[in-house]
């Protein structure tokens, strides 16, 4: 393993809560590790979990999915759909042997700037300790390419 391994983290966040929360982290000047790359979607309900797998396939070592807390969804119920899909996806991934420590599902509201920084740091530290997720890319790569 590379001595100074820096993980790549991809975050799928909703526009209204977590993206705004991450903006607040910035406005509050709370520092966190720079490994995360944020992809903005309107709502967590928009997230097709194939995207998560694609991110891991294309080099991400860890993934964060985050949106509005239950009841707070800008679109009323998108986050519930995301959560339902997540439950099924998680079960399926466990069966398939994907390390679920790599994928974190969370809620961060527009008011929780500090929570976002904490989440990113936690995930980054955890994934850094786990090392690169080459295993996934080997399996998937063998199938696809």
């Amino acid at each position, binding site marked *: 393993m590379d001595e100074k391994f*820096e993980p*790549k983290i*991809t975050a799928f966040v909703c*526009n*209204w*809560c977590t*993206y*705004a929360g*991450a*903006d607040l*982290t*910035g*406005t509050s*000047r*709370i*520092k*966190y*590790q*720079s490994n995360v*790359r*944020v*992809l*903005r*979607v*309107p*709502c967590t*309900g*928009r*997230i*097709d979990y194939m*995207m998560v797998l*694609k*991110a891991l396939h*294309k*080099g*991400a070592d860890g993934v964060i999915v985050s949106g509005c807390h239950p*009841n*707070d*969804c*800008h*679109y*009323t*119920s*998108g986050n519930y*759909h*995301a959560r339902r*899909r997540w439950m099924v996806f998680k079960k399926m991934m466990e069966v398939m042997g994907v390390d679920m420590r790599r994928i974190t599902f969370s809620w961060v*509201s*527009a*008011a*929780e700037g500090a929570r976002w*920084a904490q989440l990113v740091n936690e995930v980054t530290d955890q994934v850094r300790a786990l090392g690169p997720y080459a295993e996934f890319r080997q399996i998937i790569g063998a199938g696809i390419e």
Partner: protein
Amino acid sequence: MSRIGVFTCHCGENIGATVDCVKVAEMCKDIPGVVHSVEYKYMCSDPGQRQMQEAIKEHQLDGVVVAACSPRMHEPTFRRAAGDAGINPYMCEMANLREHCSWVHEKGDATTQKAADLIRVLVEKVKHNEPLHPIKVPVTRTAMVIGGGVGGIQVALDIANGGHKVVLVEKSPSIGGHMSQLSETFPTLDCSQCILTPRMVEAAQHPNITLMTYSEVEKVDGFIGNFKVTVRKKARKLDEKLCTGCGLCIQKCPNKKISDEFNEGLGTRTAIYVPFPQAVPNKPVIDLQNCTYYKTGKCKVCEKMCPTNAIRFDQEDELVTLDIGAIVLATGFKLMKTDAFPEYGYGKHKDIIDGMQFERLASASGPTSGVMKRPSDGKEPETVVFIACSGSRDRAKGVPYCSKICCMYTAKHAMLYKHKVHSGKAYVFYMDIRAAGKDYDEFVRRAIEEDEVKYIRGRVSKIYEEDGKLIVMGADTLMGGEPVVIKADMVVLATAVQSNDRSEELAQTLHVSYDSYGFFAEAHPKLRPVETNTAGIFLAGACQAPRDIPETVAQASGAAAKVVGLFSNDELTREPIVAVVNRQAAPVYSTCVGCFLCQGACPYQAIEQEEIKARSGEVIMTLARINPGLCQGCGTCVATCRTKAIDLQGFSNEQIYAELMTL
């Protein structure tokens, strides 16, 4: 091949101090498809925008990435600028180098690299962007104001005077809010009711305003210009049209010992009641919890006494659905109760009261008719201690923020007390005096210098009762923390301002954001203070943060101006971020198979069934179709669709996967 321009902003020092913008601009030149990459001190400034527009023309760009602040801040600015330069506005995307990069990371190569990565991702997205066109929707020129306090009344009057219809919804039986409870107002010491009640009457009589008192918002559907709001009109148990407000029922009601909310529990009222004599509308309601008839099945004295037979014991709550174009939230605040303070006796001592209770004691319309009498035994208090910051600026037990109004009203209370009890002694324990405002500091100085109120800088650690006195144990930090013990007859706690009960629930009903204290969140703290992030919903007053009356009124007029501005359009343009079900030539028609799982997933009932018919009229297949007027663009249907027949404009599968491929 795309011709994309990248414009990196320094944002003065905000980005430039931690991200090497020059290097980023150089790095971006190597991204395939990028034909132009520059950096500039302030992209959002006029010369910055012009530079971008000139580059679009000169280099014939077909897509633009502006790497600057959050798209939630300036996306409309740059999209407009791009549109003016002749490309489709939706071919412009923003990379968030400020909030998501420079402000949150230390200076260094990793941060500069991240900035370049963020841009690279967006360049890939822009390559797959499609030109989009805003959707036009009609506007219903009726506003709804939720909350009938001074803020809500001001909003309603301003909009109504602008020539538009307003529905003013208030949960309690009368409009007026907290201001109607106040005795006198700082810094002028003019009578609160004298300045408010004419406004209340004006609102009630205005031809453009419909009052809905004793009503609550139950459900909100739709979007800016086209909301459908369901309001629950709680049963007053009274026919408002027949009631003349004579008050005979109130006089004869046998149940007279109910704690009076308007007087903050310091007085009593009957089971059929009007909250206060100047109530608007001046029509009673029956309190179902305390009415003898509803408890025992017998009584109905009010029904027998009513000269116009207006009492309706069988009246039920009514649900009314209204078409509304814009909503203003003005739901106000609540005060923390005295029972939140163990060191001050958990609210057990009758003579330890909060600020609003003091207002009622000092008010000419209050339970003592404005004569200073302490609640426990009705004696005139000779020594009164006022404790500012009770619960405010207290991270351990209360709220961390400053409640803003307490310094001023505590000075006012001490002053009013001294005006009523000339020989009395008034002490104020404070942390800091925050009297920023026109004539505010002068007012506090007047309390100290002319009315001889003793200000002690320090906290009170404990209050206990001894021989009919309240022993207040504090410290004077300007005297080196020397202990101070005062034998008081009454203590007034300036308790913290909190968000109103059920404000989070209301925020969820309206889909607006709120902070961790339950105050509604503005769209931008400085530049969009009266708007929420949900288009068409605005804020006024203390539902957003602690505020005094002048600020509330000013913000209310601001919100009203926003609504009137909105209503001056014949039709509104909406972001074309909507889902679309693909259509293809016969015989395929669409990859949609007509399972309609999307219909169940859509929160807006925007998905319809469309029948594809042959010339004979025979239905060949039934496909999903999305009504762009109803779709809000959440994309839940897109992720639900099994055949990937639905895509979301602006966040299409192609765009998102393109972004992922470059990570």
